[in-house]
């Protein structure tokens, strides 16, 4: 019976109504899609006009991109690959300043580590007053701290670095403080969200047995949230390592300063050497930190 119905659908008025409704709906959807598409296209054209992307500039620029990136790539010759640093085309010739660059990369990683530590410490202090569930009695303090964290977070670390280079002089200290300021804002928000998701019953217990607000935070909240804090701080360290590798562009220390010089003076092959070093360092740290984070989170679950 069903097969017969499928083979020859009855062409009654009901089917016609459904068909009409369906095609009307489809027409409406197509019109809407076309409308949104037109808006998007118009926005794209305006954006292209505003950012000077025109057929002429593109035609002039794109061949130069290929040319430039070709120049940056090292000229390695297979037969001389492992020859000494004097032989052109060998790995040692390409990485001829590896010792200095590796040291700069190490400095960069230590800048990122110190900045993450400082930022995480400041965020740790600020996140409890920025948690809604702990600050029921003091909404003013809560919103003031929240706004402060927002301000720290929204200004990019490079802008902080530009300003701090004037105050602290050229060098790693300005970069560290700039990254630490931005980290305070970013981690403070994440930490506060963790605290807001914490179980409040232990806190009630501590308060009921006569503990102060600080006791409650110390003995009821911190043990719950610490693994998540650590995990977020490590994640931030990964981000900050990327940030620290470019903060030297404005004179705030690390390998960025060297990279800026090398790019500005068109020492082509050295650009790729340093960038490769940065990629290797960043992925190595990512790998290690991911392992540790998984272990922390796994250990936190009883």
């Amino acid at each position, binding site marked *: 019976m069903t097969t017969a119905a499928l083979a020859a659908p009855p062409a009654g008025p009901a089917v016609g109504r459904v068909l009409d409704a369906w095609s009307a709906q489809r027409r409406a959807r197509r019109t809407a899609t076309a409308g949104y598409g037109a808006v998007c296209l118009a926005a794209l054209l305006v954006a292209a006009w505003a950012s000077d992307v025109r057929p002429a500039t593109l035609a002039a620029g794109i061949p130069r991109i290929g040319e430039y990136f070709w120049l940056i790539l090292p000229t390695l010759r297979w037969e001389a690959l492992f020859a000494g640093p004097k032989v052109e085309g060998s790995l040692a010739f390409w990485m001829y300043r590896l010792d200095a660059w590796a040291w700069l990369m190490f400095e960069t990683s230590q800048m990122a580590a110190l900045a993450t530590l400082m930022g995480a410490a400041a965020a740790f202090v600020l996140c409890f007053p920025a948690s809604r569930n702990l600050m029921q009695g003091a909404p003013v303090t809560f919103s003031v701290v929240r706004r402060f964290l927002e301000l720290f977070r929204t200004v990019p670390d*490079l802008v902080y670095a530009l300003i701090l280079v004037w105050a602290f002089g050229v060098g790693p200290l300005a970069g560290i403080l700039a990254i630490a300021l931005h980290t305070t804002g970013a981690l403070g928000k994440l930490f506060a969200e963790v605290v807001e998701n914490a179980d409040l019953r232990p806190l009630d217990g501590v308060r009921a047995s006569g503990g102060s607000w600080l006791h409650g935070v110390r003995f009821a909240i911190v043990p719950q949230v610490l693994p998540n804090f650590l995990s977020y701080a490590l994640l931030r360290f990964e981000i900050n390592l990327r940030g620290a590798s470019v903060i030297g562009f404005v004179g705030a220390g690390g390998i960025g300063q060297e990279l800026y010089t090398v790019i500005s003076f068109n020492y082509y092959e050295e650009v790729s050497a340093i960038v490769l070093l940065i990629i290797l360092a960043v992925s190595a740290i990512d790998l290690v930190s991911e392992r540790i984070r998984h272990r922390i989170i796994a250990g936190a679950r009883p």
Partner: protein
Amino acid sequence: MTPGLSAIDASAVAAARARVPAAFGAPPGRQARTAILWLAFLAWLGALLWWFDVSPVRIWNGIGGVLTILRLMVPPSPGEHLDDILKGLGESVAMAFLGTVMAALVAVPLGFLGARNVATNALFRFSLRRVFDGFRGVDQLIWALAYVRAVGLGPLAGVLAIFTADIAVLAKLYAEAIENAEKRQTEAVEAAGARRVLVMRFGLLPQVLPVMLAQALYFFESNTRSAAILGIVGAGGIGLQIAERIRIRAWDEVAFIIILILLMVAAIDLLSARIRHRLIGARPAP
């Protein structure tokens, strides 16, 4: 009644501590380990502070400098070149928009190629993913500086930098979205006798398109933030204005530009959150 419930006073605690010291603290081995870890941490911290020349005097002088700058920032003033500032702001948004759209368009096919349920060649997929990872390690600012050398100063370098830096990350996210898509829908289209391309068009694309758009919007938001600083290395946008004002120490104008950037970022966030809600409902994007 029971002696245990009557007063436990300080002297009883002290007596107990003297009798079973192990019950009142970590075992000595763990205590020693904790102490060594703390010592190593403090030594590392001290070495870093010495290396980076962080002395109280320097911090004090620096804070004095920051306070002077903050005092000079009030009241913020647009200076004499408000039109340049507004133009830079618009340029930043335009760069972010154009770069994100281009990156998203290129990332869609790359995402399909990198997804496990679409690309069947494991070696190809693996190497493609490693290339994505490598690209991800290079900061947007490095791309910007390189593009400035390649195509010259101006917003084109910034657009290209955003485009290049985002392709890899978006492609990876898109590949994950495609892998997470519901299999039953594609199987249904396949069972109806559709070709492979049609299976993707009607089985896969309707599922992943809203997610992809939402991700692209997230990237647009974050790119408006980064497009604000690309100008510092000469890649167009408001960053150029801010770097110039800082160079001539016009701190009140710097403050004005920073406030404008904050407002712009907040406005874009609001707009993009609205569009995202319409696209994927109230559910937060993954």
